[in-house]
Protein backbone atom coordinates (compact mmCIF):
# COMPACT_ATOMS: atom_id res chain seq x y z
CA UNK A 1 0.00 0.00 0.00
CA UNK A 2 1.43 3.34 -0.92
CA UNK A 3 1.57 6.17 1.54
CA UNK A 4 -1.23 8.04 -0.25
CA UNK A 5 -3.74 5.22 -0.09
CA UNK A 6 -2.86 4.98 3.59
CA UNK A 7 -3.44 8.69 4.13
CA UNK A 8 -6.76 8.59 2.26
CA UNK A 9 -7.82 5.53 4.22
CA UNK A 10 -7.05 7.33 7.49
CA UNK A 11 -8.81 10.48 6.28
CA UNK A 12 -11.99 8.55 5.47
CA UNK A 13 -11.87 6.95 8.92
CA UNK A 14 -11.39 10.33 10.54
CA UNK A 15 -14.34 11.76 8.62
CA UNK A 16 -16.57 8.83 9.65
CA UNK A 17 -15.56 9.36 13.26
CA UNK A 18 -16.40 13.06 13.03
CA UNK A 19 -19.83 12.18 11.62
CA UNK A 20 -20.18 9.69 14.46
CA UNK A 21 -19.34 12.35 17.03
CA UNK A 22 -22.00 14.67 15.65
CA UNK A 23 -24.59 11.88 15.56
CA UNK A 24 -23.65 10.83 19.10
CA UNK A 25 -24.19 14.32 20.48
CA UNK A 26 -27.43 14.49 18.48
CA UNK A 27 -28.67 11.25 20.04
CA UNK A 28 -27.75 12.55 23.49
CA UNK A 29 -29.33 15.96 23.08
CA UNK A 30 -32.39 15.16 20.93
CA UNK A 31 -33.28 11.52 21.52
CA UNK A 32 -32.10 10.48 24.99
CA UNK A 33 -32.59 13.85 26.66
CA UNK A 34 -35.72 13.63 28.83
CA UNK A 35 -37.19 16.81 27.34
CA UNK A 36 -35.00 18.33 24.62
CA UNK A 37 -36.68 21.75 24.58
CA UNK A 38 -36.08 22.21 28.31
CA UNK A 39 -32.53 20.95 28.04
CA UNK A 40 -31.71 23.36 25.22
CA UNK A 41 -33.49 26.31 26.81
CA UNK A 42 -32.34 25.74 30.38
CA UNK A 43 -34.52 24.84 33.37
CA UNK A 44 -35.73 28.37 34.14
CA UNK A 45 -36.79 29.40 30.65
CA UNK A 46 -40.12 31.15 30.03
CA UNK A 47 -42.75 29.36 27.88
CA UNK A 48 -42.27 31.84 25.02
CA UNK A 49 -38.53 31.09 25.03
CA UNK A 50 -39.27 27.38 24.93
CA UNK A 51 -41.53 27.91 21.91
CA UNK A 52 -38.75 29.86 20.20
CA UNK A 53 -36.24 27.09 21.00
CA UNK A 54 -38.58 24.44 19.61
CA UNK A 55 -38.83 26.41 16.36
CA UNK A 56 -35.13 27.22 16.22
CA UNK A 57 -33.96 23.64 16.69
CA UNK A 58 -36.90 22.13 14.76
CA UNK A 59 -37.83 20.06 17.79
CA UNK A 60 -41.43 19.64 16.56
CA UNK A 61 -40.26 17.93 13.35
CA UNK A 62 -39.72 14.19 12.84
CA UNK A 63 -36.42 12.94 14.21
CA UNK A 64 -34.70 12.45 10.83
CA UNK A 65 -35.51 16.05 9.86
CA UNK A 66 -33.99 17.17 13.16
CA UNK A 67 -30.91 15.06 12.43
CA UNK A 68 -30.60 16.64 9.00
CA UNK A 69 -30.70 20.19 10.37
CA UNK A 70 -28.34 19.26 13.19
CA UNK A 71 -25.79 17.65 10.86
CA UNK A 72 -25.85 20.54 8.41
CA UNK A 73 -25.42 23.15 11.11
CA UNK A 74 -22.69 21.19 12.93
CA UNK A 75 -20.72 20.59 9.73
CA UNK A 76 -20.87 24.31 8.97
CA UNK A 77 -19.76 25.08 12.55
CA UNK A 78 -23.04 26.74 13.37
CA UNK A 79 -23.81 25.72 16.94
CA UNK A 80 -26.58 28.19 17.63
CA UNK A 81 -26.75 31.12 19.99
CA UNK A 82 -25.52 31.05 23.58
CA UNK A 83 -28.26 32.21 25.95
CA UNK A 84 -25.78 33.02 28.71
CA UNK A 85 -23.02 34.80 26.77
CA UNK A 86 -25.51 36.36 24.30
CA UNK A 87 -23.20 35.53 21.41
CA UNK A 88 -23.09 32.86 18.69
CA UNK A 89 -21.36 29.76 20.06
CA UNK A 90 -18.99 29.56 17.09
CA UNK A 91 -17.67 33.05 17.90
CA UNK A 92 -17.12 32.03 21.52
CA UNK A 93 -15.20 28.95 20.43
CA UNK A 94 -13.09 31.02 18.03
CA UNK A 95 -12.05 33.19 20.98
CA UNK A 96 -11.49 30.54 23.63
CA UNK A 97 -10.22 27.51 21.70
CA UNK A 98 -6.89 29.09 20.58
CA UNK A 99 -6.13 30.07 24.17
CA UNK A 100 -6.46 26.46 25.30
CA UNK A 101 -4.59 25.15 22.27
CA UNK A 102 -1.72 27.48 23.09
CA UNK A 103 -1.63 26.17 26.65
CA UNK A 104 -1.80 22.54 25.50
CA UNK A 105 0.87 23.06 22.87
CA UNK A 106 3.37 24.37 25.42
CA UNK A 107 2.36 21.58 27.81
CA UNK A 108 2.89 18.91 25.16
CA UNK A 109 6.38 20.19 24.36
CA UNK A 110 7.20 20.09 28.09
CA UNK A 111 5.65 16.62 28.47
CA UNK A 112 7.65 15.33 25.53
CA UNK A 113 10.91 16.74 26.86
CA UNK A 114 10.39 15.50 30.42
CA UNK A 115 9.04 12.13 29.29
CA UNK A 116 11.75 11.36 26.76
CA UNK A 117 14.63 12.38 29.02
CA UNK A 118 13.36 10.63 32.14
CA UNK A 119 12.65 7.54 30.01
CA UNK A 120 16.14 7.57 28.50
CA UNK A 121 17.65 8.16 31.93
CA UNK A 122 15.70 5.23 33.41
CA UNK A 123 16.79 2.95 30.58
CA UNK A 124 20.42 4.00 30.98
CA UNK A 125 20.25 3.12 34.69
CA UNK A 126 18.03 0.05 34.28
CA UNK A 127 17.37 -1.75 37.60
CA UNK A 128 19.48 0.74 39.52
CA UNK A 129 18.54 3.67 41.75
CA UNK A 130 18.10 6.04 38.82
CA UNK A 131 15.49 3.72 37.33
CA UNK A 132 13.62 3.34 40.63
CA UNK A 133 13.61 7.08 41.29
CA UNK A 134 12.16 7.80 37.87
CA UNK A 135 9.57 5.07 38.42
CA UNK A 136 8.54 6.50 41.78
CA UNK A 137 8.33 9.98 40.28
CA UNK A 138 6.08 9.03 37.41
CA UNK A 139 3.94 6.78 39.54
CA UNK A 140 3.21 9.67 41.88
CA UNK A 141 2.68 12.20 39.11
CA UNK A 142 0.45 9.74 37.25
CA UNK A 143 -1.76 9.22 40.28
CA UNK A 144 -1.83 12.90 41.15
CA UNK A 145 -5.23 14.52 40.73
CA UNK A 146 -4.76 17.45 38.30
CA UNK A 147 -5.98 19.98 40.85
CA UNK A 148 -3.47 18.79 43.43
CA UNK A 149 -0.56 19.12 41.00
CA UNK A 150 -1.72 22.60 40.04
CA UNK A 151 -2.31 23.70 43.64
CA UNK A 152 1.08 22.47 44.85
CA UNK A 153 2.91 24.23 42.03
CA UNK A 154 0.89 27.37 42.63
CA UNK A 155 1.51 27.21 46.37
CA UNK A 156 5.27 26.81 46.20
CA UNK A 157 6.40 28.46 42.99
CA UNK A 158 3.94 31.34 42.84
CA UNK A 159 2.96 32.06 46.45
CA UNK A 160 5.97 31.01 48.56
CA UNK A 161 8.83 31.79 46.20
CA UNK A 162 7.03 34.35 44.06
CA UNK A 163 8.92 33.29 40.93
CA UNK A 164 5.94 33.16 38.58
CA UNK A 165 2.48 34.75 38.61
CA UNK A 166 -0.15 32.52 40.30
CA UNK A 167 -3.09 33.04 37.96
CA UNK A 168 -4.72 34.79 34.99
CA UNK A 169 -3.58 34.73 31.36
CA UNK A 170 -1.47 37.88 31.49
CA UNK A 171 -0.97 40.96 33.62
CA UNK A 172 -4.47 42.55 33.63
CA UNK A 173 -3.07 46.09 33.52
CA UNK A 174 -1.55 45.47 30.10
CA UNK A 175 -3.50 46.12 26.90
CA UNK A 176 -4.42 42.85 25.20
CA UNK A 177 -3.45 42.51 21.54
CA UNK A 178 -6.05 42.60 18.78
CA UNK A 179 -7.56 39.30 17.62
CA UNK A 180 -5.41 38.17 14.69
CA UNK A 181 -4.72 34.47 14.98
CA UNK A 182 -6.55 34.11 18.29
CA UNK A 183 -3.45 32.84 20.09
CA UNK A 184 -2.82 35.70 22.54
CA UNK A 185 0.93 35.16 22.75
CA UNK A 186 1.36 34.99 18.98
CA UNK A 187 -0.92 37.99 18.44
CA UNK A 188 1.18 40.00 20.86
CA UNK A 189 4.29 38.94 18.97
CA UNK A 190 2.79 39.97 15.62
CA UNK A 191 1.75 43.33 17.01
CA UNK A 192 5.13 43.81 18.61
CA UNK A 193 3.44 44.13 21.99
CA UNK A 194 6.49 42.94 23.98
CA UNK A 195 5.25 43.56 27.54
CA UNK A 196 2.12 41.51 26.88
CA UNK A 197 4.13 38.83 25.11
CA UNK A 198 6.48 38.34 28.06
CA UNK A 199 3.68 38.52 30.56
CA UNK A 200 1.58 35.92 28.74
CA UNK A 201 4.59 33.63 28.40
CA UNK A 202 5.24 33.85 32.13
CA UNK A 203 1.60 33.15 32.86
CA UNK A 204 1.68 30.09 30.60
CA UNK A 205 4.49 28.27 32.38
CA UNK A 206 2.74 27.14 35.57
CA UNK A 207 -0.50 25.84 34.01
CA UNK A 208 1.45 24.19 31.18
CA UNK A 209 3.85 22.62 33.65
CA UNK A 210 0.94 21.30 35.74
CA UNK A 211 -0.54 19.66 32.65
CA UNK A 212 2.85 18.21 31.76
CA UNK A 213 3.34 16.94 35.29
CA UNK A 214 0.20 14.80 35.24
CA UNK A 215 0.83 13.24 31.83
CA UNK A 216 4.55 12.73 31.27
CA UNK A 217 4.55 9.26 32.86
CA UNK A 218 3.15 7.46 29.85
CA UNK A 219 5.88 8.91 27.62
CA UNK A 220 8.54 7.96 30.17
CA UNK A 221 7.35 4.35 30.14
CA UNK A 222 7.24 4.00 26.37
CA UNK A 223 10.60 5.73 25.91
CA UNK A 224 12.19 3.55 28.55
CA UNK A 225 11.00 0.30 26.97
CA UNK A 226 11.78 1.30 23.39
CA UNK A 227 15.14 2.60 24.53
CA UNK A 228 15.91 -0.75 26.15
CA UNK A 229 15.15 -2.43 22.81
CA UNK A 230 17.22 0.12 20.93
CA UNK A 231 20.20 -0.41 23.24
CA UNK A 232 20.28 -4.07 22.15
CA UNK A 233 20.34 -3.18 18.44
CA UNK A 234 23.34 -3.82 16.22
CA UNK A 235 24.00 -0.19 15.44
CA UNK A 236 24.31 0.59 19.14
CA UNK A 237 26.63 -2.36 19.71
CA UNK A 238 28.70 -1.17 16.76
CA UNK A 239 28.88 2.28 18.31
CA UNK A 240 30.01 0.77 21.60
CA UNK A 241 32.74 -1.13 19.81
CA UNK A 242 33.86 1.98 17.97
CA UNK A 243 34.41 3.45 21.41
CA UNK A 244 31.67 6.06 21.37
CA UNK A 245 31.10 7.31 24.88
CA UNK A 246 28.06 5.90 26.72
CA UNK A 247 26.09 9.11 27.26
CA UNK A 248 26.40 9.95 23.59
CA UNK A 249 25.13 6.52 22.58
CA UNK A 250 22.09 6.77 24.81
CA UNK A 251 21.11 10.38 24.22
CA UNK A 252 22.09 10.70 20.56
CA UNK A 253 22.19 7.36 18.77
CA UNK A 254 19.48 5.36 20.49
CA UNK A 255 17.22 8.24 21.50
CA UNK A 256 16.37 9.19 17.92
CA UNK A 257 14.92 5.78 17.19
CA UNK A 258 13.22 5.32 20.52
CA UNK A 259 11.27 8.53 20.01
CA UNK A 260 9.22 7.07 17.16
CA UNK A 261 6.64 5.25 19.33
CA UNK A 262 6.19 8.45 21.32
CA UNK A 263 4.51 10.05 18.31
CA UNK A 264 1.55 7.67 18.47
CA UNK A 265 1.04 8.67 22.08
CA UNK A 266 0.88 12.37 21.37
CA UNK A 267 -2.74 12.23 20.19
CA UNK A 268 -3.67 10.37 23.35
CA UNK A 269 -1.81 12.88 25.50
CA UNK A 270 -3.60 15.67 23.64
CA UNK A 271 -6.95 14.14 24.57
CA UNK A 272 -5.96 13.84 28.25
CA UNK A 273 -4.70 17.36 28.30
CA UNK A 274 -8.01 18.70 27.08
CA UNK A 275 -9.67 16.92 30.01
CA UNK A 276 -6.97 18.14 32.35
CA UNK A 277 -7.13 21.70 31.06
CA UNK A 278 -10.73 22.02 32.25
CA UNK A 279 -9.48 21.58 35.82
CA UNK A 280 -6.18 23.44 35.43
CA UNK A 281 -7.85 26.47 33.84
CA UNK A 282 -10.25 26.69 36.78
CA UNK A 283 -7.38 26.80 39.26
CA UNK A 284 -5.20 29.26 37.37
CA UNK A 285 -8.17 31.41 36.28
CA UNK A 286 -6.94 30.92 32.74
CA UNK A 287 -9.89 31.83 30.52
CA UNK A 288 -9.77 29.18 27.83
CA UNK A 289 -12.12 26.58 26.47
CA UNK A 290 -12.23 24.75 29.80
CA UNK A 291 -13.38 27.90 31.53
CA UNK A 292 -15.99 28.46 28.79
CA UNK A 293 -17.24 24.90 29.19
CA UNK A 294 -17.53 24.98 32.98
CA UNK A 295 -19.16 28.41 32.98
CA UNK A 296 -21.66 27.25 30.37
CA UNK A 297 -22.32 24.10 32.38
CA UNK A 298 -23.04 26.01 35.61
CA UNK A 299 -25.37 28.41 33.80
CA UNK A 300 -27.35 25.79 31.88
CA UNK A 301 -26.02 27.13 28.59
CA UNK A 302 -26.55 23.92 26.65
CA UNK A 303 -25.73 25.11 23.09
CA UNK A 304 -22.30 26.18 24.26
CA UNK A 305 -21.67 22.86 26.03
CA UNK A 306 -22.62 20.88 22.93
CA UNK A 307 -20.73 23.18 20.57
CA UNK A 308 -17.54 22.98 22.65
CA UNK A 309 -17.69 19.23 22.96
CA UNK A 310 -18.26 18.67 19.23
CA UNK A 311 -15.30 20.91 18.42
CA UNK A 312 -13.15 19.14 21.02
CA UNK A 313 -14.15 15.74 19.64
CA UNK A 314 -13.22 16.85 16.13
CA UNK A 315 -9.90 18.22 17.38
CA UNK A 316 -9.04 14.89 18.99
CA UNK A 317 -9.93 12.96 15.82
CA UNK A 318 -7.74 15.31 13.79
CA UNK A 319 -4.90 14.93 16.28
CA UNK A 320 -5.15 11.15 15.91
CA UNK A 321 -5.14 11.48 12.13
CA UNK A 322 -2.04 13.68 12.18
CA UNK A 323 -0.27 11.30 14.55
CA UNK A 324 -1.06 8.31 12.30
CA UNK A 325 0.26 10.08 9.22
CA UNK A 326 3.37 11.39 10.98
CA UNK A 327 4.12 7.92 12.26
CA UNK A 328 3.98 6.46 8.76
CA UNK A 329 6.04 9.27 7.26
CA UNK A 330 8.76 9.17 9.90
CA UNK A 331 9.17 5.43 10.15
CA UNK A 332 9.03 3.76 6.72
CA UNK A 333 9.30 0.34 8.39
CA UNK A 334 5.72 0.62 9.66
CA UNK A 335 3.39 -1.80 7.95
CA UNK A 336 0.72 0.42 6.45
CA UNK A 337 -2.75 -0.88 6.90
Amino acid at each position, binding site marked *: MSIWTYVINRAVRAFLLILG*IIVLTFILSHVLAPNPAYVWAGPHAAPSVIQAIIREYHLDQPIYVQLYYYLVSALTFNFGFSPYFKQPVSELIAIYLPRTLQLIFVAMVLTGLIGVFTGAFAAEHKDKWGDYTVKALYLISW*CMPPFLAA*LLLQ*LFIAYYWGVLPPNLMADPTLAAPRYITGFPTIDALIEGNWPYFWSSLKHLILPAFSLALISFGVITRITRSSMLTALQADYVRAAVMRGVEKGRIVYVHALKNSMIPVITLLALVFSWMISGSVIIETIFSYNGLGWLLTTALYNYDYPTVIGCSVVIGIAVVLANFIADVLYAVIDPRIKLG
Partner: protein
Amino acid sequence: MTLEVTVRRRRGWADVVIRLLKKPDVAFGLVIVALFYAWSMVEGVLQVVGALLNNPALGWALLPYNPFQPHLSQSLQPPSILHIMGTDDLGRDILSRVLYAAPYDALISLVVVGGGILIGGFIGMVAGFYGGGVEEFNMWLTDLFLAFPALILAMVIEATFGHGYIYAMIAMIVVWWPSYARLFRAETIRVRSMKYIDAALLSGLSRLEIIRRHIIRPALITILPYATLDLGNVILFYSMLSFLGLGQQPPLPEWGSMVALGLEYFPRWWWYSIMPGLVILIIAVATALVGDGLRDVIGGEERWV
Protein backbone atom coordinates in the same frame (compact mmCIF):
# COMPACT_ATOMS: atom_id res chain seq x y z
CA MET B 1 13.43 -47.45 42.96
CA THR B 2 11.24 -44.72 44.32
CA LEU B 3 9.13 -42.79 41.96
CA GLU B 4 9.41 -39.05 42.50
CA VAL B 5 6.32 -37.17 41.73
CA THR B 6 6.34 -33.42 41.72
CA VAL B 7 2.95 -32.13 42.40
CA ARG B 8 2.41 -28.70 40.98
CA ARG B 9 -0.04 -27.04 43.26
CA ARG B 10 -2.66 -24.94 41.65
CA ARG B 11 -2.05 -21.34 42.50
CA GLY B 12 -4.89 -20.22 44.73
CA TRP B 13 -5.80 -16.70 45.71
CA ALA B 14 -4.16 -17.07 49.12
CA ASP B 15 -0.93 -17.86 47.35
CA VAL B 16 -1.26 -14.76 45.16
CA VAL B 17 -1.77 -12.58 48.23
CA ILE B 18 1.26 -14.06 49.97
CA ARG B 19 3.44 -13.36 46.97
CA LEU B 20 2.08 -9.82 46.80
CA LEU B 21 2.96 -9.21 50.44
CA LYS B 22 6.59 -10.19 49.87
CA LYS B 23 7.39 -6.94 48.07
CA PRO B 24 7.38 -3.98 50.45
CA ASP B 25 5.90 -1.45 48.02
CA VAL B 26 3.13 -3.78 46.89
CA ALA B 27 2.43 -4.78 50.48
CA PHE B 28 2.13 -1.11 51.40
CA GLY B 29 -0.34 -0.60 48.54
CA LEU B 30 -2.32 -3.68 49.47
CA VAL B 31 -2.65 -2.58 53.09
CA ILE B 32 -3.89 0.88 52.07
CA VAL B 33 -6.35 -0.52 49.54
CA ALA B 34 -7.64 -3.10 52.02
CA LEU B 35 -8.03 -0.46 54.74
CA PHE B 36 -9.82 1.87 52.35
CA TYR B 37 -12.38 -0.70 51.22
CA ALA B 38 -12.84 -2.17 54.68
CA TRP B 39 -13.42 1.26 56.19
CA SER B 40 -15.76 2.20 53.34
CA MET B 41 -17.81 -0.91 53.94
CA VAL B 42 -18.15 -0.28 57.68
CA GLU B 43 -18.87 3.41 57.25
CA GLY B 44 -21.24 2.76 54.33
CA VAL B 45 -23.22 0.20 56.30
CA LEU B 46 -23.44 2.59 59.27
CA GLN B 47 -24.70 5.39 57.01
CA VAL B 48 -27.30 3.18 55.34
CA VAL B 49 -28.50 1.72 58.64
CA GLY B 50 -28.55 5.22 60.13
CA ALA B 51 -30.68 6.47 57.27
CA LEU B 52 -33.05 3.49 57.57
CA LEU B 53 -33.44 3.95 61.34
CA ASN B 54 -33.87 7.70 60.92
CA ASN B 55 -30.81 8.18 63.06
CA PRO B 56 -28.13 9.83 60.89
CA ALA B 57 -25.82 10.17 63.90
CA LEU B 58 -24.95 6.50 63.36
CA GLY B 59 -23.08 7.68 60.23
CA TRP B 60 -20.52 9.49 62.36
CA ALA B 61 -20.49 7.19 65.36
CA LEU B 62 -16.93 6.07 64.53
CA LEU B 63 -15.63 9.45 63.36
CA PRO B 64 -13.63 11.80 65.59
CA TYR B 65 -16.14 14.66 64.98
CA ASN B 66 -19.56 15.23 63.49
CA PRO B 67 -18.80 16.00 59.81
CA PHE B 68 -21.81 18.32 59.43
CA GLN B 69 -21.90 20.30 62.69
CA PRO B 70 -20.33 23.77 62.26
CA HIS B 71 -18.07 25.07 65.05
CA LEU B 72 -17.42 28.62 63.98
CA SER B 73 -14.95 29.20 66.81
CA GLN B 74 -12.84 26.40 65.37
CA SER B 75 -12.88 27.53 61.73
CA LEU B 76 -9.80 27.15 59.52
CA GLN B 77 -7.59 25.58 62.18
CA PRO B 78 -4.29 24.26 60.77
CA PRO B 79 -3.52 20.54 61.06
CA SER B 80 -2.78 19.60 64.67
CA ILE B 81 -3.21 16.69 67.07
CA LEU B 82 -6.85 17.63 67.60
CA HIS B 83 -7.60 18.02 63.90
CA ILE B 84 -5.12 15.93 61.92
CA MET B 85 -6.10 17.49 58.60
CA GLY B 86 -7.22 20.83 60.00
CA THR B 87 -10.70 22.29 59.86
CA ASP B 88 -12.67 23.99 57.10
CA ASP B 89 -14.31 27.43 56.96
CA LEU B 90 -17.20 26.31 59.17
CA GLY B 91 -14.89 24.65 61.68
CA ARG B 92 -15.76 21.12 60.59
CA ASP B 93 -13.01 18.53 60.97
CA ILE B 94 -11.61 17.74 57.51
CA LEU B 95 -10.49 14.23 58.47
CA SER B 96 -14.02 13.35 59.59
CA ARG B 97 -15.44 14.67 56.35
CA VAL B 98 -12.86 12.75 54.31
CA LEU B 99 -13.68 9.54 56.17
CA TYR B 100 -17.41 10.17 55.85
CA ALA B 101 -17.04 10.54 52.05
CA ALA B 102 -14.96 7.37 51.57
CA PRO B 103 -17.88 4.98 50.87
CA TYR B 104 -19.07 7.02 47.88
CA ASP B 105 -15.66 6.73 46.26
CA ALA B 106 -15.33 3.05 47.07
CA LEU B 107 -18.77 2.31 45.66
CA ILE B 108 -18.30 4.29 42.48
CA SER B 109 -14.91 2.71 41.80
CA LEU B 110 -16.38 -0.80 42.04
CA VAL B 111 -19.53 0.01 40.06
CA VAL B 112 -17.75 1.84 37.26
CA VAL B 113 -15.00 -0.75 36.82
CA GLY B 114 -17.62 -3.52 37.03
CA GLY B 115 -19.90 -1.78 34.55
CA GLY B 116 -16.98 -1.10 32.24
CA ILE B 117 -15.98 -4.76 32.33
CA LEU B 118 -19.57 -5.92 31.66
CA ILE B 119 -20.27 -3.62 28.70
CA GLY B 120 -16.73 -3.42 27.33
CA GLY B 121 -16.25 -7.15 27.87
CA PHE B 122 -19.36 -8.02 25.89
CA ILE B 123 -18.57 -5.66 23.01
CA GLY B 124 -14.88 -6.56 22.94
CA MET B 125 -15.31 -10.33 23.17
CA VAL B 126 -17.98 -10.39 20.49
CA ALA B 127 -15.75 -8.23 18.26
CA GLY B 128 -12.72 -10.42 18.84
CA PHE B 129 -14.54 -13.72 18.39
CA TYR B 130 -16.85 -12.95 15.47
CA GLY B 131 -14.44 -10.77 13.46
CA GLY B 132 -15.48 -9.27 10.13
CA GLY B 133 -18.17 -6.64 10.00
CA VAL B 134 -19.21 -7.12 13.63
CA GLU B 135 -15.66 -6.39 14.73
CA GLU B 136 -15.39 -3.37 12.42
CA PHE B 137 -18.57 -1.87 13.80
CA ASN B 138 -17.84 -2.59 17.45
CA MET B 139 -14.37 -1.14 17.22
CA TRP B 140 -15.65 1.92 15.35
CA LEU B 141 -18.09 2.46 18.18
CA THR B 142 -15.25 2.08 20.67
CA ASP B 143 -13.09 4.59 18.81
CA LEU B 144 -16.02 6.96 18.65
CA PHE B 145 -16.39 7.03 22.42
CA LEU B 146 -12.64 7.26 22.85
CA ALA B 147 -12.53 10.27 20.52
CA PHE B 148 -14.14 12.37 23.21
CA PRO B 149 -11.81 13.32 26.02
CA ALA B 150 -13.31 11.41 28.95
CA LEU B 151 -14.05 14.42 31.13
CA ILE B 152 -15.76 16.30 28.29
CA LEU B 153 -18.05 13.37 27.47
CA ALA B 154 -18.97 12.95 31.12
CA MET B 155 -19.69 16.68 31.37
CA VAL B 156 -21.99 16.58 28.32
CA ILE B 157 -23.87 13.60 29.72
CA GLU B 158 -24.38 15.32 33.07
CA ALA B 159 -25.38 18.56 31.32
CA THR B 160 -28.07 16.61 29.49
CA PHE B 161 -29.46 14.50 32.29
CA GLY B 162 -28.60 16.33 35.48
CA HIS B 163 -25.89 16.72 38.10
CA GLY B 164 -25.44 14.28 40.96
CA TYR B 165 -23.92 11.06 42.19
CA ILE B 166 -26.03 8.65 40.14
CA TYR B 167 -25.62 10.71 36.97
CA ALA B 168 -21.88 10.85 37.54
CA MET B 169 -21.87 7.07 37.88
CA ILE B 170 -23.79 6.58 34.63
CA ALA B 171 -21.62 9.11 32.80
CA MET B 172 -18.49 7.37 34.01
CA ILE B 173 -19.64 3.92 32.90
CA VAL B 174 -20.31 5.39 29.45
CA VAL B 175 -16.81 6.85 29.44
CA TRP B 176 -15.18 3.75 30.90
CA TRP B 177 -16.28 0.78 28.77
CA PRO B 178 -14.28 1.53 25.58
CA SER B 179 -10.87 0.83 27.10
CA TYR B 180 -12.19 -2.52 28.38
CA ALA B 181 -13.65 -3.29 24.94
CA ARG B 182 -10.16 -2.91 23.48
CA LEU B 183 -8.55 -5.04 26.20
CA PHE B 184 -11.12 -7.80 25.93
CA ARG B 185 -10.92 -7.85 22.14
CA ALA B 186 -7.13 -8.25 22.20
CA GLU B 187 -7.42 -10.95 24.86
CA THR B 188 -10.16 -12.80 22.92
CA ILE B 189 -8.09 -12.78 19.74
CA ARG B 190 -5.19 -14.29 21.71
CA VAL B 191 -7.30 -17.03 23.29
CA ARG B 192 -9.20 -17.71 20.07
CA SER B 193 -6.07 -19.09 18.38
CA MET B 194 -5.80 -21.86 21.02
CA LYS B 195 -6.45 -25.45 20.00
CA TYR B 196 -9.17 -26.02 22.59
CA ILE B 197 -11.32 -23.34 21.01
CA ASP B 198 -11.09 -25.13 17.67
CA ALA B 199 -12.06 -28.33 19.43
CA ALA B 200 -15.04 -26.61 21.02
CA LEU B 201 -16.13 -25.20 17.66
CA LEU B 202 -15.86 -28.67 16.07
CA SER B 203 -17.87 -30.20 18.87
CA GLY B 204 -20.69 -27.91 17.81
CA LEU B 205 -20.86 -25.41 20.66
CA SER B 206 -22.37 -22.11 19.62
CA ARG B 207 -20.04 -19.16 19.53
CA LEU B 208 -21.71 -17.26 22.36
CA GLU B 209 -21.51 -20.46 24.43
CA ILE B 210 -17.78 -20.76 23.70
CA ILE B 211 -17.28 -17.16 24.82
CA ARG B 212 -19.19 -17.92 28.01
CA ARG B 213 -17.39 -21.14 28.84
CA HIS B 214 -13.87 -20.69 27.54
CA ILE B 215 -13.05 -17.05 26.98
CA ILE B 216 -14.47 -15.04 29.86
CA ARG B 217 -12.32 -16.66 32.52
CA PRO B 218 -8.86 -16.38 30.98
CA ALA B 219 -9.66 -12.90 29.69
CA LEU B 220 -10.82 -11.74 33.12
CA ILE B 221 -7.70 -13.06 34.83
CA THR B 222 -5.42 -11.26 32.40
CA ILE B 223 -7.38 -8.06 32.83
CA LEU B 224 -7.47 -8.22 36.63
CA PRO B 225 -4.20 -6.29 37.20
CA TYR B 226 -5.39 -3.50 34.95
CA ALA B 227 -8.81 -3.45 36.59
CA THR B 228 -7.20 -3.14 40.02
CA LEU B 229 -5.12 -0.20 38.94
CA ASP B 230 -8.22 1.21 37.30
CA LEU B 231 -10.07 1.43 40.64
CA GLY B 232 -7.70 4.27 41.47
CA ASN B 233 -8.23 5.85 38.05
CA VAL B 234 -11.98 5.89 38.66
CA ILE B 235 -11.52 7.58 42.03
CA LEU B 236 -9.21 10.13 40.41
CA PHE B 237 -11.67 10.81 37.63
CA TYR B 238 -14.63 11.01 39.94
CA SER B 239 -12.77 13.50 42.08
CA MET B 240 -12.39 15.64 38.95
CA LEU B 241 -16.13 15.49 38.29
CA SER B 242 -16.86 16.24 41.90
CA PHE B 243 -14.34 19.10 41.81
CA LEU B 244 -16.41 20.60 39.01
CA GLY B 245 -19.57 20.22 41.11
CA LEU B 246 -20.87 17.26 39.13
CA GLY B 247 -20.69 14.66 41.90
CA GLN B 248 -22.42 14.32 45.25
CA GLN B 249 -24.23 17.58 45.96
CA PRO B 250 -23.61 19.65 49.14
CA PRO B 251 -23.91 19.48 52.10
CA LEU B 252 -22.64 15.92 51.66
CA PRO B 253 -18.84 15.92 51.78
CA GLU B 254 -16.88 14.69 48.80
CA TRP B 255 -13.12 14.63 48.22
CA GLY B 256 -13.11 16.53 44.94
CA SER B 257 -15.70 19.11 45.97
CA MET B 258 -13.85 19.77 49.24
CA VAL B 259 -10.81 20.72 47.17
CA ALA B 260 -12.99 23.07 45.09
CA LEU B 261 -14.55 24.64 48.21
CA GLY B 262 -11.10 25.16 49.67
CA LEU B 263 -9.92 27.15 46.63
CA GLU B 264 -11.52 30.26 48.09
CA TYR B 265 -9.27 29.92 51.14
CA PHE B 266 -6.15 29.11 49.17
CA PRO B 267 -3.22 29.65 49.64
CA ARG B 268 -3.40 31.00 53.21
CA TRP B 269 -5.46 28.09 54.53
CA TRP B 270 -3.85 25.59 52.15
CA TRP B 271 -4.82 22.42 54.07
CA TYR B 272 -8.50 22.82 53.18
CA SER B 273 -7.75 21.99 49.51
CA ILE B 274 -4.51 20.07 49.77
CA MET B 275 -5.48 17.47 52.40
CA PRO B 276 -8.38 15.85 50.51
CA GLY B 277 -6.21 15.98 47.37
CA LEU B 278 -3.43 14.09 49.16
CA VAL B 279 -5.90 11.40 50.25
CA ILE B 280 -6.94 10.86 46.62
CA LEU B 281 -3.27 10.69 45.63
CA ILE B 282 -2.48 8.07 48.28
CA ILE B 283 -5.41 5.83 47.32
CA ALA B 284 -4.54 6.11 43.63
CA VAL B 285 -0.86 5.30 44.23
CA ALA B 286 -1.88 2.31 46.39
CA THR B 287 -4.13 0.80 43.70
CA ALA B 288 -1.44 1.38 41.09
CA LEU B 289 1.11 -0.45 43.25
CA VAL B 290 -1.24 -3.38 43.80
CA GLY B 291 -2.10 -3.49 40.10
CA ASP B 292 1.61 -3.52 39.22
CA GLY B 293 2.30 -6.23 41.77
CA LEU B 294 -0.60 -8.36 40.54
CA ARG B 295 0.71 -8.11 37.02
CA ASP B 296 4.07 -9.44 38.13
CA VAL B 297 2.40 -12.37 39.89
CA ILE B 298 -0.37 -13.26 37.43
CA GLY B 299 1.42 -12.14 34.30
CA GLY B 300 -0.06 -10.07 31.56
CA GLU B 301 0.88 -7.06 29.58
CA GLU B 302 2.22 -3.83 30.96
CA ARG B 303 -0.56 -1.48 30.20
CA TRP B 304 -1.38 1.93 31.58
CA VAL B 305 -3.37 3.40 28.78
